[in-house]
């Protein structure tokens, strides 16, 4: 490089660094920006990791055992032993169970007929009734699945016991399922939520923080001063976005570390590929934020537009919470800048 070109490049870098330093000072002084960049990611990570879960646990169960036999008690015991159900009510009249569901005292009611054990002994089908509160359809489907698995295990154990009592070997089951859960063997929802949360938080923080930066200058009347300064447009853009890019990169590293430390989510793929994808993702987010900041007339408007255009697509349409495969075809390729994040990040628990 020629000395004149080198001086020019050095001067340019110095100008951008000065602008970055000014932006960092502004971030430090502005509680809204600081809160968006630091407090929100930490709060959401802890909230989603610990409190919000899709796991179905401790579903309140009410039982009406009309048989009162060893077999019926064994079945109830199997329900009560699992983490999925918590035995809350035992009633003598099965007609009370709908009322309990109506009062929200239980979510599932189990009715065992008076001839339950007799039918089992006679080798006949012994029907049991399961009343499920369907107001939350996701929980209801999971509950039916859990109940089905418990009843199958009970039936299989009971058939084996009966065969042993009769002194002959138990017949092998016609079909036996041997499930192997890959990628998330314990089926913990935190392990699927945390990687998605990284994308969610990055998009929200990058867009919102950048959206406020230029609007703030306009609102406070300092943009004119910036324009009077010996700056080129691209220096202004770089000086305005680089600080947020740096903050977002630090934020990514922190989320990955917290995810690994608290929830056991680790990156097993190439860190380099992940860094490249994150960088591209952040450039897209920063570009969106910058665009909003050049259009919005005030900070509250910029904030609302940024939240609306990031929160909705990232949270609802990205596959983070609701599966994209289940959406109608026209929604499947919806223009959400964050779609790749939750569907194809090389993160694994």
């Amino acid at each position, binding site marked *: 490089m020629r000395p004149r070109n080198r001086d020019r490049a050095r001067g340019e870098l110095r100008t951008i660094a000065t602008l970055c330093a000014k932006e960092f000072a502004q971030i430090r002084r502005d509680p809204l920006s600081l809160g968006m960049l630091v407090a929100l990611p930490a709060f959401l990570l802890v909230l989603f990791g610990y409190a919000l879960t899709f796991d179905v646990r401790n579903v309140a169960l009410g039982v009406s055992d009309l048989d009162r036999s060893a077999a019926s008690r064994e079945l109830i015991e199997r329900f009560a032993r699992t983490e999925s159900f918590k035995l809350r009510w035992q009633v003598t009249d099965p007609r009370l169970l709908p009322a309990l569901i109506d009062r929200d005292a239980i979510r599932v009611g189990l009715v065992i007929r008076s001839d339950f054990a007799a039918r089992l002994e006679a080798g006949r089908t012994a029907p049991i009734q399961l009343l499920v509160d369907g107001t939350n359809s996701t929980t209801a489907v999971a509950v039916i699945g859990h109940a089905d698995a418990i009843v199958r295990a009970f039936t299989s154990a009971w058939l084996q016991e009966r065969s042993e009592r009769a002194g002959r070997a138990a017949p092998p089951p016609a079909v036996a399922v041997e499930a192997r859960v890959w*990628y998330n063997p314990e089926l913990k929802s935190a392990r699927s939520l945390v990687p998605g949360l990284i994308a969610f938080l990055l998009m929200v923080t990058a867009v919102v923080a950048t959206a406020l930066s230029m609007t703030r200058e306009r609102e406070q009347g300092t943009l*004119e001063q910036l324009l009077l300064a010996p700056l080129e447009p691209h220096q202004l853009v770089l000086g305005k976005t680089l600080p947020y890019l740096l903050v977002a990169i630090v934020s990514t590293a922190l989320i990955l570390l917290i995810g690994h430390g608290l929830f056991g989510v680790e990156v097993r793929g190439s860190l380099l*590929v992940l860094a490249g994808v994150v960088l591209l993702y952040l450039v*897209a987010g920063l570009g969106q934020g910058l*665009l909003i900041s*050049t259009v919005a007339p005030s900070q509250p408007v910029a904030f609302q537009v940024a939240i609306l255009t990031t929160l909705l697509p990232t949270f609802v349409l990205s596959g983070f919470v609701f599966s994209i495969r289940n959406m109608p075809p026209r929604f499947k390729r919806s223009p959400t800048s964050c779609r*790749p994040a939750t569907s*194809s990040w*090389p993160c694994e628990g």
Partner: protein
Amino acid sequence: MLKGTGVAAFWPDLGFLAAFATLTVGLSSVRLRRLWHDPT
């Protein structure tokens, strides 16, 4: 065990991201150029 390894699996999404980034940065530049002349 890894799921979806290999950059090949991401190409469509990466292309979408790159296009999105180019569009937003390009539009921002246009807007900034206007602001440059009329910062009010």
